[in-house]
């Protein structure tokens, strides 16, 4: 029963959504399932947050290595949660001044936006920016023009990188008008519009077929690996 009921829930919910796209009568059922799905997904965020808190509290109580950083994680988590839930410093929406919590969390000057703007954004964007160094370093070490495929990849990367910067314009700007198609900025456009479109289109078609096949396998109960314990 621990496996059969979840299997039937998945089958009914999945086919409900699937049929709602094709059968007008099932539209309402599809909307209802989608609404329930969005609420459960939101609760999943809360589950994730609670799980994080539980893990770090456990680490703290056991005084594991790095427990000091767990204090920071847990402290910033609680601070942000409290600020966001209580909407500190957020005025009501001018349309509904009678509702004290009608203002949005994105109000300029609110404590939540302060945390978002001055803590979360700099941290996340700098972490992504840091990848520029690691991508460049990894590429320098890994890229070798050993065969045709590697040469194609390298040349394309150079064309795209140079074609979208001033360096590309400077390098091939001397080419006469009749050969302007060979200028790097134009070449990068051709590569993106023709070759890249062809490759990415095929990848998208492949992904769509794969997703549809996997989805149908789940809905027909052929793939039960998500229940745990293998496909059986």
């Amino acid at each position, binding site marked *: 029963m621990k496996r059969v009921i979840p299997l039937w829930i998945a089958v009914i919910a999945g086919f409900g959504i699937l049929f709602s796209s094709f059968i007008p009568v099932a539209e309402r059922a599809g909307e209802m399932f989608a609404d329930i*799905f969005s*609420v459960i*997904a939101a609760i999943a965020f809360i589950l994730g947050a609670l799980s994080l808190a539980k893990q770090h509290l456990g680490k703290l109580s056991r005084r594991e290595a790095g427990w000091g950083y767990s204090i920071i994680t847990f402290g910033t988590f609680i601070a942000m949660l409290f600020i966001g839930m209580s909407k500190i410093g957020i005025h009501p929406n001018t349309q509904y001044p009678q509702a004290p919590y*009608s203002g949005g969390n994105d109000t300029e000057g609110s404590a*939540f936006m302060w945390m978002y703007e001055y803590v979360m954004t700099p941290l996340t964007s700098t972490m992504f920016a840091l990848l520029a160094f690691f991508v460049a370093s990894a590429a320098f070490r890994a890229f070798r023009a050993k065969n045709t495929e590697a040469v194609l990849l390298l040349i394309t990367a150079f064309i*795209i990188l140079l074609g979208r910067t001033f360096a590309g314009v400077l390098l091939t700007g001397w080419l006469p008008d009749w050969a302007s198609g060979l200028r790097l900025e134009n070449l990068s456009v051709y590569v993106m519009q023709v070759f890249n479109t062809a490759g990415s*289109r*095929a990848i998208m*078609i492949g992904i769509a077929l794969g997703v549809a096949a996997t989805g149908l396998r789940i809905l027909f109960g052929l793939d039960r690996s998500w*229940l745990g314990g293998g496909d059986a």
Partner: protein
Amino acid sequence: MSRQRKTWLVIGAIFLALLVVRGMTGQGLGRIYVQRSEVTATMPGAGDGTKAAAPGTNPTVPGQGAGSKDAKVVAAAGETVVWAEWKEVPPRAFAAAQQANPSQSAITLSWPRTIGLWLAAFFTLAVFSFLYADNPFYKVAEATVVGVSAAYWGVIGFWDTLVPKMFGALTPGLVKSMVQPSLVDPVMSQKISMALALILGVMMLWRLMPKGGWISAWPLAFIVGVTAGLKIVSHIESDLMAQAQATMKPLIVTVAGSGGATDLWASLWASVANIILVTGVICCLVYFFFSVEHKGAIGGAARVGIWFLMITFGAAFGYTVMGRIALLAARVEFLFDDWLWLIDPNHFRSSGL
């Protein structure tokens, strides 16, 4: 003292010295100015008296308290309430206001935002410090981003989804009075579905309990089923059908020139582009088709497909690197422009300071 610690000390000393020199020369650094404005709103309901709250008497300060809520509670129907808001302005606006009236108070230094700016600069440098080696500053930044991000998405999920959808259906009166007066009264089917969602949500939270983990499999099954159903439809519609349709292009194209006659070169290029595009898609799909051995004509087509895929990966790599470098440039611009005031590409300070 270890060599690493010595290096850190030297870097820190140089950094501090630069900050001090920068603070003492030129026009300063790292400040945010705000302009006060008043927002008025009329409480709905009967009543004809308009009683404006005197500016400055309302204790609401964005980011410093929830005084606005008090204002709303005490105000009667029909009354006009006023509260203050502070909008960020460029430093040159402050300079201009000071020049016009040295005792003005409309544009002032915002301490909370200025502290925030310095904190953002600290976090930016803390993350960049990882380029040297893993260190406590980076670990602090890492721990902070985990805590803040988890809470951020929890808060967004609560206010943007749970409150309007779930609480709006189950406790419409409370949501109407506190959050969303425009809420449409839910029908019975909405109430039932949201009650079901609440039950499944609670079952999902059961995962945190030491026993009865199987209970959370029911909501998980619902998520798996709905995701499968949604993805089948959306991927077939937007990826498979739309992309296949977009690939069905004419292989011979005629482009009209300025005089109405056929532009030979443009037509030739458009035809070649379409032929390359269609051939590329077919060859890539042949490469993905593993049910037939890649030999002979199929093998040749698959090899051409690999070339197209390599070009695609090269373009994707180039774009990824460019995106990261753009982010890096934005962070460096933040440090040198917003924080240190060493550059002024947007002319935020150039006119006055």
